[in-house]
């Protein structure tokens, strides 16, 4: 399984070279990397643990707001703000999971929407905490080692590091005990319990990891936009987009969410410039087609085919 590390290193090298080759295409690349990271992080809970969440925008918002409010109101450096956001996101995920993990399937999904919507209303209405509906501007940030954090190049490398970190986490996880526990819980909680795994604990860990990583991306997103409005960043549609990205690519696979991000963000950008008003329509159709014809995702479907073929061969010999 070392080849995953190899692929990742290759991609990171390509990623490092990208700004030199395409200096005028950084915003799209940043969005793509952020979505790759978020979708991968989402997949720890949604794919590996099998709990489909439509509330991950809350974690993006949490990370974003720690950085934005920290910088604009309390003068907290973004790295400290991100560190606090990671802790806060883990705590939020813990409480959230404690509350809702006894629900399964669609019930769990619905509960995530409800909690995320309540958090959105809190972010909008509690102006003393978040700056309210009118949003927060990040006007200035410290410059560590003379590095301009606002610069597109810096944003880009931060996003690249974030995406690489999440993929690295998932690769490592897929091979260690925790990864096997997750899959056991996903397949059958009762049998997992029978083999001494506590499903709730395992799911809680997955949610905390997933939430914290998502919040990390949220912090980078905040610097990228340098202006946050709670309506946008806590929006249900963002949660849906994150989940869709992972699912289109292939849930529970290492590279699926990244491929999903490439397709969703990439096609979104191409459609935006080529189909004008019809671009969202094409995007919707694309989602439907992928789900109908590649129900396990772009990576998931061929992977399943390969695995089946391998089994068949082994059975024959």
């Amino acid at each position, binding site marked *: 399984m070392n080849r995953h590390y190899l692929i990742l290193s290759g991609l990171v090298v390509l990623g490092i070279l990208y700004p030199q080759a395409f200096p005028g295409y950084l915003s799209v690349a940043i969005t793509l990397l952020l979505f790759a990271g978020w979708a991968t992080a989402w997949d720890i809970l949604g794919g590996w643990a099998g709990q489909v969440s439509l509330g991950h925008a809350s974690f993006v918002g949490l990370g974003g707001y720690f950085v934005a409010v920290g910088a604009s109101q309390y003068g907290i450096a973004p790295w400290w703000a991100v560190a606090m956001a990671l802790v806060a996101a883990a705590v939020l995920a813990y409480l959230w999971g404690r509350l*809702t993990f006894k629900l399964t*399937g669609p019930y769990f999904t619905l509960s995530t*929407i409800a909690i995320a919507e309540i958090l959105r209303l809190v972010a909008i209405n509690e102006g003393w905490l978040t700056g309210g509906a009118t949003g927060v501007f990040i006007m200035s940030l410290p410059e560590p080692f003379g590095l301009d954090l606002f610069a597109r190049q810096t944003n880009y490398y931060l996003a690249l590091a974030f995406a690489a970190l999440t993929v690295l986490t998932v690769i490592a996880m897929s091979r260690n005990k925790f990864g096997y526990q997750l899959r056991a819980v996903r397949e059958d909680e009762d049998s997992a319990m029978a083999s001494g795994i506590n499903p709730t604990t395992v799911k809680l860990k997955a949610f905390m990891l997933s939430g914290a990583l998502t919040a990390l991306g949220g912090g980078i997103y905040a610097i990228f936009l340098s202006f946050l409005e709670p309506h946008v960043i806590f929006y249900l*549609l963002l949660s849906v987009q994150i989940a869709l990205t992972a699912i289109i690519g292939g849930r529970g696979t290492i590279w699926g969410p990244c491929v999903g991000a490439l397709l969703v963000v990439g096609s979104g950008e191409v459609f935006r410039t080529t189909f004008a008003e019809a671009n*969202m329509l094409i995007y*919707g159709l694309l989602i*439907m087609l992928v789900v109908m014809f590649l129900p396990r995702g772009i990576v998931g479907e061929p992977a399943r085919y390969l695995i089946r073929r391998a089994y068949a061969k082994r059975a024959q010999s």
Partner: protein
Amino acid sequence: MLDYVSFLQNLSNGLLIGGVYALIGVGLTLVFGVMKTINFAHGDFVILGMYCAVLLNTLFGWDPYLTLLVAMPLGFLTGAILQRLVLSRLVEAPPESSLLVTLGLALVIGNILLLTFGAEPQSVHVAYASSTLSLGEISLSVILLLAGLATLIVITALYAILNHTELGRSIRATADNRLGAELVGINTRWIEAVVFGIGMALAVTAGVVLIPLLFATPTFSGAIFTLKAFVVTVLGGLGNIGAAIAGGLLLGVVEVLGASYLTSDYRDAYGLLVFLLVLLLRPEGLFGKTVKRV
């Protein structure tokens, strides 16, 4: 302290709004009950109904309620066709696939509407838009009363179909036990198409009934209606028709009383909080049968 008249006024407003919510929710709950599909495009079906009323009103000057004659059958057909063409392909796919495909469908419907009707909000203005009926010191909105009446008729009719016709028996059989239904010779694939058709017809009806009250926007309000429908359905109990009414009424009362006596900016949160409580304490819904879920 509590002003008695204004409390009754708020309570009755809450019940009337709840009637509207019930109408939005009942189609979703039916579809879930039979197909175990969470239909994310449900709110957009409601919007389709609104545009149907707007179109017939601008073309022929029809009263919105008259357009139901066209909208309901059209909704039924579209729903059945969508089910055959799209959802029926997903039987073998992972359970979340239907949720995703309907998310895609929601985008498609919204944006087709955007391209045909433009983004400008549209509505039908009726003379009775802000008329009220007085009941002592309490005044009731005529439009909301009509909507409540429509809810009552629709749900009674649905109840009659489900409980007193052959089709209804087949639907209930499919909902209870798909395999068993197939074994006794029910064509469950067609039942599912019919059910999705009915679900869509109900959503469209809700849209038509709401148009004198609301605006139709192609891409904005669909998700809001879908969310309300979810809350209603879960409050009542997923898959339970009668309980959708109770869920709707409860949601309406909670929202209106919360907005009246607490603070209005958290209006939607009150409903969601009750929704969460119900999910956690009684996942089968307030009025659902207690079944052990496997």
